[in-house]
């Protein structure tokens, strides 16, 4: 329907985030990440996506959050970057949600500053705030 957005949602630390479903290629679990020395800090490494080498960007590092506890096995969201696929490491993957464009709002000041720069804006839900990531900015921050 007009004025509606479909987001793939996920959790990173206490943040409830979303990305436009059109930019998400697939969601994976239990992907082994090969460390990539000398890369920018948010790039945790690379993964083998059916024979293709895809960089793995740690969203916690992008958002300047504390590292995930050892026990947490991150989930991988493969997104379509401007040039090639990129995988984002998140704590947990949530539902695909349909939200109304009318509720879209600018990111409030209460959201931590490190995250604010990487967001397009927010969708206030009944019980919480859904933060929509700006993929372009995330990737620029990741490779900076």
């Amino acid at each position, binding site marked *: 329907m007009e004025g509606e957005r479909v987001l793939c949602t996920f959790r990173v630390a206490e943040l409830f985030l979303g990305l436009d479903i059109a930019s998400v290629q697939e969601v994976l679990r239990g992907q*082994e990440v*090969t*460390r*990539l*020395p*000398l*890369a920018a800090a948010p*790039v945790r490494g*690379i*993964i*083998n996506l059916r*024979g*293709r*080498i*895809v*960089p793995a960007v740690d969203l916690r590092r992008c958002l300047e959050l504390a590292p995930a506890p050892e026990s947490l096995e991150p989930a991988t969201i493969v997104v379509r970057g401007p*040039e*090639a696929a990129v995988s984002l490491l998140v704590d947990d993957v949530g539902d695909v949600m349909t939200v109304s464009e009318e509720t879209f709002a600018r990111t409030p000041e209460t959201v931590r500053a490190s995250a604010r720069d990487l967001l397009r804006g927010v969708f206030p839900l009944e019980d919480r705030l859904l933060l929509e990531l700006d993929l372009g900015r995330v990737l620029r921050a990741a*490779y900076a």
Partner: protein
Amino acid sequence: MDEGILAEFLAESFENLAQVEHDLVALERDPEDRKRIGGIFRAVHTIKGTCGFFGFKKLEALAHAGENLLSRLRCGEIAFTPSLADTLLRLVDALHAILSAIETTRQEGDQEFAPLIEELVHLERAPSGAAAPPDSPSTAEAETGAPPRGGLLDPLIAEGRLDPDAVALAAQQQRLGDPRRIGEILVDNGALKPQDVLDALLARGEAPALAHGESTIRVDVELLDLLMNLVGELVLARNQLLQKVASSDLADLPGTTQRLNLITTELQEGIMKTRMQPIANLCNKLPRLVRDLSIACGKEVRLELEGIDTELDRTIIDAIRDPLTHLIRNAIDHGIETSEARLARGKAAEGRILVRAYHEGGKVHLEVTDDGDGLPIARIREKATRAGLVPAERIPRMSDRDWAQLIFQPGFSTAERVTNVSGRGVGMDVVKTNVERIGGAIEVDSQPGRGATVRIRIPLTLAIVPALIVAAAGERYAIPQVNLLELIRVEGDLASISITTAVDASLLRYRGGLLPLVDLRDALHVPADDAFPTPAGARPIAVLQADGATFGLVVDAVETSQEIVVKSLGDPLRQIPVFAGATILGDGKVALILDVPGLARHCGITVRGHAAMEEVVDETPAPVVPTQTLILCRAGGYPVAIPQSDIARLEEFPRGTIERLGERRVVQYRGGLLPLVPLAGLLGIGPDAALETAAEAPAGGASLQTIRVVVVEREGHAIGLAVEEIVEILEEPVVPEVSSRAGVRGSAVIRGHATDLLDLEALLASSGQPAMAAGA
């Protein structure tokens, strides 16, 4: 405008222009070759016809002028002259420039070609006034509304894919003021499918191979069918496997796996083939280059090409384009003499350059041979000696061939004058670097006064390379075998075996030199408090070479050697300088491929840096022992080292050729008799096992069928010292401990063994051995 058709038009036009260029240069040699003139005319005509279809006015005007001139040339109304060739080559350049502009900007560009068109028209009209200027096909077509002559539409009509009535209708539309080109009208009216236009363009391509460096290649449909078939097989095998695993029916697992293996291999080969391109694509530009350069240098040069059907991966073709161009440049500028000089030397006035390609030993060999003056070995020697490029002790052992290889050293040029073609001392080293970067090797052979040959050996593909898999800090890394010299393991921890210098680098004494050591963990900035502690004790060292620098890479473990498929890291990870890509190992895990030249730069290891470190070491109080070349052999079961300077030759004789003369043993050698003396006996260190004649050897014994002999010359006489084995030739800094034994200068630890260092002079003097007169 359909992008696909345009891309096809560009690809085809670039190809045709390359062929035209080629033919024009060939025509200069044989102006009467009507077939070539016809080919050139058709190519230019095709460009003109098709660009009309797209509405490229500038391109059309230029091609049109060229076509008219070529048409008269084809009819024999004007003669092919060098100045005409010049103008036509400039026409090719101009057409190329417009096409390139279209390729990048979709516009024809701002360049003006009016003077060139004028010149073409002038040439067309000037020489013979008899014939009226031929009707230009495009004028005729505009007047009559007939479809473009010889254009795209004729074959389509002939094949029944296009209704002639529709063409007439479109032409009618044009006459009524429709500004679109006839092809566009037809497509828009639905009378013509874009695919048909594409097919027509394809069908007209005279040279099927792609010459221009863009990102598309043409693949044989048969090959594609084969690949499709293989992929089908692959899916089938996968389904079988899934089924078996799901039902736990593992009965024929080895069979299915074997099938999967075969399919994969065939598929891999097939895919590789799609990337193969004939070297002809690389050589197309060469005739023009040779022509222009020989005119610029005032020389006469003929280019010959051989084996240009040899196929190579297109990435490699792209990579050797520049080196090859440079070699030809060099051959014309430095190698080939001027015609006068050649005639004075009794050679043909015209020089000859042969570019030859062939397969051998799983590699492609590419040779550039000229019949010029050869390399100025004396001048190379003088210059290299003056610049200190060769260590003084090595100079006496350098052959002419060794000297010749020095032209690949950075900053080396013997050109007496700097020309605008070459001679600035950059070049051959860049050629070498470029060739080595793709895993190739280069060498030069020179015959004084008769010419030189540069040989390049390159791998067939870069997509699959043999590599060594090593481990460091819990990850695995692949080192391309081309960069690997050897693997060594040094007992004791690094601190105790290496010397740390003022420049803060670890150095290892290695083969008589100093080897800078780099710990892969440090190079990759792996934190020290990592979950993977540095293993205790000895760690393997991979001795690596890149861009002329040699260094040792300390790793945690060496795993295996295997062929790896190179995968790109993609942007922007590609910018990390120490990795050449990544590969997926047998267990599905990813290993990064080390870019050895990048790693060396990252760690500050350069040829110059290496030398600086040696200097720093030289300044430290610890005496640096001069190295000497030793022949390490085995006599009486013991290792013995003989200074190479004492040795004339190393020989092998069949055991059966040894003859006895009383107590002496001799062998016929160089027309005389060479007395043989067992070295072990001479030193009194064991049985004379080395010299048993065939009859004396114990039946079924381990005696070899040949004996190894170190030939020494003393006071003009030769004598052969028989040894059991010649182990190796090494350069070693040796501090012998003094010995009191006769004939032994002392002992030293070489390769971990106490080794006697011979004093031949004393040994032979004390033994009073008879010798054969040298050269007898």
